[in-house]
């Protein structure tokens, strides 16, 4: 039994670790806890939609989550309302749990040492882990949007949509805008995922990494709400999380949205650099 006759199928540069990424995605999406998180997220548009449907209370504009006053007029707004409702807490919670678990969970279980001795280079571990986190965040955002659109259409009248700017657009355009919102939220979550991955690389206790990531997300939003700290606001990773409201105007004012994307890009770069420098040098003693 010798490996001399083993064909080396490794083609550096060509193989993008697709097989390992698929395996990682199966691990993330196959895990019961993560499935429960997705179900809870999907329940938000259901709860909001049903509540609006069965209640006769009139909602004033500005009350409750953004756009909630418009849902009964056009069901497609349920997607926007639901996304606005989950962005501040539930989505960061779900992403924080999965991201905090990414490296620390494998370290605690001891599976990290076997993954590394396969071998998988440490950089590749991080790339694959981060890839799966980005996919999870996107899946969560698009799930909320899809359930919102579908249920909104089932429970309420649809048709041409009158945007915040007063312009009316077609139903197709409104659906497109809802998906763009989900995409924007996915990018925001990609930033949080990078931060969570970095935290996760520093500990062997997954619960600590999860809690830290969620606390960071909440703290960032608290600081963002303190007017005395307005000099700090443009740097907070949560600062433009809710800027997606601009996508519901016509024409779309892109300034803040672009700021938001750039802010996330910067945070992703910094957090991944921190994660990489820590993870590629640490002793794996678990």
């Amino acid at each position: 039994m010798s490996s001399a006759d083993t064909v080396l199928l490794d083609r550096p540069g060509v193989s993008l670790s697709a097989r390992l990424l698929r395996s990682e995605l199966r691990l993330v999406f196959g895990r019961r806890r993560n499935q429960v998180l997705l179900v809870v997220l999907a329940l938000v548009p259901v709860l909001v939609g049903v509540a609006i449907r069965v209640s006769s209370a009139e909602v004033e504009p500005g009350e409750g989550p953004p756009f909630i006053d418009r849902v009964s007029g056009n069901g497609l707004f349920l997607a926007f309302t639901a996304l606005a409702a989950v962005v501040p807490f539930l989505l960061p919670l779900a992403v924080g749990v999965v991201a905090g678990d990414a490296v620390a969970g494998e370290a605690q279980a001891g599976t990290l040492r076997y993954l590394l001795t396969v071998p998988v280079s440490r950089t590749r571990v991080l790339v694959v882990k981060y890839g799966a986190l980005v996919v999870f965040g996107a899946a969560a955002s698009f799930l909320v949007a899809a359930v919102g659109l579908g249920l909104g259409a089932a429970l309420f009248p649809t048709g041409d949509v009158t945007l915040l700017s007063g312009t009316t657009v077609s139903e197709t355009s409104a659906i497109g805008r809802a998906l763009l919102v989900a995409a924007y939220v996915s990018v925001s979550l990609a930033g949080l995922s990078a931060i969570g991955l970095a935290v996760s690389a520093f500990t062997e206790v997954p619960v600590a990494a999860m809690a830290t990531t969620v606390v960071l997300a909440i703290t960032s939003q608290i600081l963002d709400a303190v007017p005395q700290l307005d000099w700090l606001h443009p740097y907070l990773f949560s600062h433009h999380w809710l800027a997606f409201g601009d996508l519901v105007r016509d024409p779309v004012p892109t300034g803040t949205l672009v700021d938001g994307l750039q802010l996330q890009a910067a945070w992703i770069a910094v957090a991944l650099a921190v994660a990489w420098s820590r993870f590629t040098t640490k002793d794996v003693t678990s």
Partner: protein
Amino acid sequence: MTAPVLQVEAPRSAPDVDAAVRTTGLTKRFRGGQVAVDALDLVVPRGSVTGFLGPNGSGKTTTIRMLLGLVVPTSGQVELLGEPVPRASASVLPRVGALVEGPAFHPYLSGRANLVRLDAADRTVDRRTSSARIDTALDRVGLQAAAGKRFRTYSLGMKQRLGLAAALLRPRDLFILDEPTNGLDPQGTREVRTLVRELAADGCTVLVSSHLLGEIEQVCDRVVVMRAGRAVTSGTLEELALLARPSVVVETPALDAALSVLRRLGATAATADADGLRVRADLPDVAVEDVTRALVHADVPVRGIGRSGRSLEELFVELTGEGFDVVG
């Protein structure tokens, strides 16, 4: 406290021997100052089954982690199959099957799904043969029937078997097995022994750690004995057995003169004890009175002489320090 270093005088592994594992001055000082491995020069000749023996906390697992690139040495070098680790890890580690400090898998995946994941992580294997190789590995460790059960439901022995199956997922040149029989029943222990012999018969090199001498004795042809991060002795099992075999012990201040007389009498292995007061030689066919006469004739001052025998077990305890306390 320094360990008694017993010098085996029979031919030792030359520095240029073809080694599957070679470390030079390998040292690990953990943060906090704990020196887990201390200037270790480890040589595992190609094709050998080498036992890595030492009591709890003697640095076996830490050494193995450094061999595999999991822990960065404080100083010193590691070579696996002739290539430096961690620099050449990507090309060397696929040829190394390893078990490090017990098996570890995802608890909520089945045994088979866990192997699928490890195989997916290996970029140097043909994915089309994946399920065939997984089946073979599971068969080889007798786990086929339980392959579909979640890992968390496995017994300790089943977990250990799955760990071995992971090491067997593809052909290897070197196996590094950290306490592979931990938690196995007598039947499982015997199976692991058979497996190690099979691997060796196939031409693989095996480094197997244990704190049980009995286990090492049965499968290994060489041993390295660790104590407090240092190798206190290494050599073939025969060389170690010589140390343990009934031998003539001469108490004398003139060690060198006594050693040369003993060799002249036909001792193939003659050693001086670490305390510098005694020499020891295997002279099974020479009567003690003849040895005495020869020593006196050569003007060697003899303070005492006699035959002594130690079991390998006693020797091991002597080498690694007796008592229950973990050194550290």
